[in-house]
């Protein structure tokens, strides 16, 4: 590999990038946008669900129970009605997501251990369902939540249990931001290099390049190098915003965070190059990028817990770089682990990079046929 030719490619890419305003905007815009979207808007802990209340008991105890439920913040009352039927109607119309029914014999039920209240949930949204389940844990036996009672003491009758010991504001940002570094880098890095080679082909530059002494490896590596810098800039933006906006902790070393990120960047760039050697047009490259991106988001453990997925999905997830990166970055940032302790995923990523890069270089022919 000739250093001067390699450098010529790097400089060329940077100069082109400097004039490509849209791509430049994407470098900063995508991380900021995604972070804000995921951090604020996409909050899996729902709050303020519209609720209707039908308290048919009208006792001090029933009012206390309702107040306790409202105090969780999960629901906010929008209507008070007399019958469960009215609640069902409102639920069906979408006016409320949750209905709380306290039957007239509330006090008697409380004494003989039968279910004392009912929470009607709009089950069409699983997130709502999960959130409303919290309500079922409102205490019934005392007006004041008993924070000392462990959840295991809850009778299986499903009467209603203690709420107090839960983190009152389980913030999803802390879980999401480290993963978001991976999601953003997977998306932008694969896309940038995915179109890198195809673009030269579409614009007619490729015929010029392959008629020169430039080697496949020089071209491929030269195309990747500028984007490593871009990736690290993006990482810095996400980390800074994460710490500043969401107070996300970095419990491990910052160096480890960047090393782990560097691995994902390289893996994504190599994958992008491979796509680029295959795709016939920039549009095809984008389609293929999405083909990688979707399973990465859904199966890597970013969206859904890895352990809960079926075996087949887990196997697919194991070949996605994002899966391994998530284990690394969550380990380093949230649990304070060192990369050394997570060597298995580091090795997997290294192997992935080596294989993808080699295949991309081998696949690229300095020929038109």
């Amino acid at each position, binding site marked *: 590999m000739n250093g*001067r*030719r390699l450098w010529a490619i790097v400089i060329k890419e940077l100069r082109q990038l400097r004039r490509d305003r849209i791509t430049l905007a994407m470098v900063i815009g995508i991380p900021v946008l995604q972070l804000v979207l995921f951090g604020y808007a996409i909050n899996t802990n729902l709050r303020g669900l519209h609720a209707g209340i039908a308290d048919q008991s009208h006792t001090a105890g029933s009012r206390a129970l309702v107040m306790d439920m409202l105090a969780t913040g999960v629901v906010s009352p929008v209507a008070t009605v007399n019958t469960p039927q009215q609640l069902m109607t409102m639920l069906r119309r979408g006016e409320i997501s949750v209905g709380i029914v306290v039957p007239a014999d509330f006090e008697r039920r409380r004494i003989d251990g039968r279910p004392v209240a009912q929470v009607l949930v709009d089950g069409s949204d699983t997130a709502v369902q999960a959130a409303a389940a919290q309500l079922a844990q409102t205490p019934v036996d005392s007006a004041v939540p008993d924070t000392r009672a462990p959840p295991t003491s809850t009778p299986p009758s499903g009467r209603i249990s203690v709420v107090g010991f839960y983190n009152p504001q389980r913030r999803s940002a802390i879980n999401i931001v480290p993963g978001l570094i991976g999601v953003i880098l997977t998306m932008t890095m694969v896309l940038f290099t995915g179109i890198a080679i195809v673009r030269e082909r579409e614009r007619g530059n490729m015929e010029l390049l392959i008629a020169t002494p430039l080697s496949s490896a020089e071209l491929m590596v030269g195309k990747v190098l500028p984007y490593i810098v871009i990736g690290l800039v993006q990482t810095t933006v996400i980390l800074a915003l994460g710490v500043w906006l969401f107070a996300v902790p970095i419990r491990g070393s910052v160096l480890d965070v960047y090393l782990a990120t560097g691995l994902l960047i390289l893996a994504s760039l190599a994958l992008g190059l491979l796509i680029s050697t295959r795709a016939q047009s920039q549009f095809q490259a984008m389609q293929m990028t999405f083909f990688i991106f979707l399973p990465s988001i859904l199966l890597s453990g970013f969206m859904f817990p890895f352990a809960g997925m079926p075996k087949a999905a887990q196997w697919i997830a194991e070949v996605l770089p994002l899966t391994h990166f998530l284990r690394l970055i969550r380990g380093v940032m949230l649990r304070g682990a060192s990369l050394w302790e997570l060597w298995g995923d580091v090795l997997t990523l290294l192997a992935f990079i080596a294989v993808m890069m080699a295949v991309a270089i081998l696949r690229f022919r300095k020929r038109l046929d």
Partner: protein
Amino acid sequence: MSADDGIAIRARGLTRRFGELVAVDHVDLDVPARHVYGFLGPNGSGKSTTIRMLCGLLTPSAGEIEVLGLRIPAEAEALRRHIGYMTQRFSLFEDLTVRENLEFLAAVQGVPKARSRSRIDELIDQYRFTDRKNQLAGTMSGGQKQRLALAGAVIHEPELLFLDEPTSAVDPESRRDFWEKLFELADTGTTLLVSTHLMDEAERCHRLAILDRGALVADGSPRELTGALQGRTLVVDAVDPRRAQSVIVDLPGVLSVAQVGSSLRVLTTEPVAAATAATDIRHRIEEALAAAGQHAQTTATPANLEDVFVAVTRNPMKQEAYAA
């Protein structure tokens, strides 16, 4: 023909198939060094495919190639240092400036670092980009782009230059200018292989090969090629050229009739035996016209490349190509 001191390109039985289509069909080629060698043929005649095989970008389906003493495609990598290739479509970077494009090519083509800057300055001066060196290539005119592409193709002073329809998107003045540059390069010892579908460009070449549907149908110097048609071209001046054309076009012995202005240019299958005597074909043409009530006068005229092209391909090129 000047005496040549070597063959830059030699090809034997060069063939390239794309599926069913035979794009290049058993072409034998000898391009002498230090010449401007032309490839003449209509679009789709296999010019680009042949050039791409000669510089090692396409693998031939069959045949042998030797360029500058190197076996192609086996030694294509070694060849790349010695050739320049100007593609049909502008292939420099439109989002880089004139100077940045040249800097990139200088580095990639291995122009020694110490020489690089002065070579770029030299080219910017020679190719008249002094006041445009910081302009983006994409914002320049067709003629300027071609000039820049040529400057880029010669930055490493290659022995051999391939130019694939270099002037197809350029106005006549820029084309003249461009050809001046090509002859300057030939004078300094560069061999040039230029493909074109324009007759006037073909006429400028030292030697040329005519390609038709993938086959090489004629080659030689323009004078040799036109000389071979000695006596087979006539000009017919008629009052109503279009009617006259319909009268003589189907006569046996007439290969083609094309209207040029108010007269007709006739190519015959056999030479008009003597310049003076009213021989066979000329006589028959005059008779046929007289019978149709057309008063016409026929005169012998020297053949041009258009006639050569028609004679070897029987596939007349467009008038516009001739007029240009």
